[in-house]
């Protein structure tokens, strides 16, 4: 793995009045890496991610995403990232193809590129028969795979996934992770939040947030060793016990 850095934060902080949602987090993410972002509900991971995506302006600190400053160059960042939220993010009343065309269109792809991309994507997901059907008719697992593929249709440098596999069965989740590995192999950096701890094992590196701070950051093996735990569940449990903040 190359050591090129695509996300770098330095004491990044977000304050809502008296409440410090994200408290001076500092970390680097490398190109092509699958970076897991773990934390209990309310630990601040969604807020941190929203700052990196340009949805929320940080209170203080520094952050570079895809080589651009989150304070000064949010537009350049937007052009270079993809995003998939925990809420399902395709239009149900549009067909599979129309969704791809729409997202390709708003990222400024040419008609030719869109045609190529949607062909590729439909091929990869095996959706030949469903290409012209409305998304609402697809099962949830497929919708999520499609949603991910659409989020990277413009070949971003980084894709942010906010709890992407909520509510699907383990087999589907495995297939979803195959897509993530594919994308990482193509050099797309994956920044993923999850609360499925088995998924944390799939990541190259994992950071664990507790009460707005990053309490641990290492590879899954490294974390298990440090916390002398047999799996990520234990690691997480040992850390999360320190939390004072209740879930919001």
């Amino acid at each position: 793995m190359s050591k090129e850095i695509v996300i770098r934060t330095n004491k990044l902080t977000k304050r809502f009045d008296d409440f410090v949602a994200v408290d001076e987090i500092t970390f680097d993410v490398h190109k092509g890496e699958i970076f897991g972002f773990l934390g209990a509900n309310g630990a601040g991971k969604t807020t941190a991610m929203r700052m990196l995506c340009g949805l929320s302006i940080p209170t203080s600190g520094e952050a570079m995403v895809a080589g651009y400053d989150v304070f000064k160059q949010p537009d350049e960042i937007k052009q270079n990232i993809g995003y998939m939220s925990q809420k399902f993010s395709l239009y149900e009343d549009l067909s599979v193809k129309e969704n791809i065309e729409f997202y390709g269109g708003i990222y400024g792809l040419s008609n030719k590129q869109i045609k190529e991309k949607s062909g590729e994507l439909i091929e990869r997901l095996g959706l030949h028969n469903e290409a012209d059907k409305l998304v609402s008719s697809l099962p949830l697992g497929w919708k999520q795979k499609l949603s991910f593929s659409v989020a990277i249709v413009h070949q971003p440098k980084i894709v942010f996934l906010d709890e992407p596999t909520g509510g699907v069965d383990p087999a589907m989740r495995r297939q979803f992770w195959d897509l993530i590995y594919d994308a990482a192999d193509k050099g797309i950096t994956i920044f993923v939040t999850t609360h499925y701890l088995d998924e944390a094992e799939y990541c190259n590196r994992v950071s664990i947030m507790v009460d707005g701070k990053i309490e641990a950051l290492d590879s899954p093996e490294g974390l298990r060793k440090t916390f002398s735990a047999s799996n990520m569940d234990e690691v997480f449990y040992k850390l999360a016990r320190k939390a004072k903040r209740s879930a919001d």
Partner: protein
Amino acid sequence: MKQLLSFIRKEFIHVWRDPKTLVMLFGFPIVQIVLFGFALTNEIKYANIVVVDNAKDVASQQIINKIEGSKFFSVQKTLMTPSAIDAAFKEGKIKLAVVFPVNFNTDLLHLNKASIQVIADASDPNTATQLSSYITTIVADYQAQLSPTMSAPYSIVPEVRMLYNPDLKGAPNFVPGVMAMVLLLVCVMMTSVSIVREKELGTMEILLVSPVKPLMVIIAKAIPYLVLSIVNLGVILVLSVYALDVPIKGSVLLLVFESTLLILTALALGLFISTITSSQQSAMFASMLGMMLPTMLLSGYLFPIENMPVVLQVISNIVPARWYYVIVKAVMLKGLGFASIWKETLILAGMAVFFTGLSLRNFKIRLE
């Protein structure tokens, strides 16, 4: 540009794929026009009245002939006792009764004074007033005819001309009102709901993370409804000209221009509502309550503004439909040009600018 086109295309697909929206968009104006044009009219035609002619002489007969000749009444001639008349009113069989006394003609000729009793069902005061005034007019007419020279040496006869709508038809009054209501309601509700839906579904976040600018979201959302509203306007105008016989006396172009101004105001209002609500239901509720009621009650279309309490008159000034209603009546019914409606146009344009500015500002704040 490519971005915008993809976006607009998507918005059109949303509209076409949603039968409910389409029904509302095109069904609503048609139902309104038909309802207001034909069913809910304030004209009175062939009201059931009873004429009790106790005199049966030349004078009474001539008056009755005149009454029968009018299309306002459907006359039933019987001899009824006062209690029978009372019963007929109670059962709602008749709206009015005219009773001639026994010596009607004799009194008229010899005493120079005769009376006719007119009894009306005033549980519906408007109808009662209207019907009794028709009768009074007919009687006065007869009197004038009977003694052109014999009447008082000085007499003032008001010649009333009902301008622009000589037959006092209901439709010319309702069409401008329906236009205002439909355009406002459709635009405000559709825009606010379509933006709030993106918030509710979570797709708004995706849009905000994409390179799409907020202004582009707004334009892309507004354009389909702008186009559909203009189509809708066409449907209403065609219906009113061909189905309701309400002609467009002034310039169609001016009418379309003024309507576009109202549509823009409505789109801005819809956008504003979308920035202050977070569910489709509350957006719809806000549009209905915020638009439908003021438009119906305070635009002067159902109730004349001059008759309202001062407070309501003042409030009515901020209702866009109020100004639009004046404009449409001027252009459509009176055939006036821009020179006579520039003030109202200016107010409407001011409102469009104000609401657009307000909602743009609010929309940006909400992105944070």
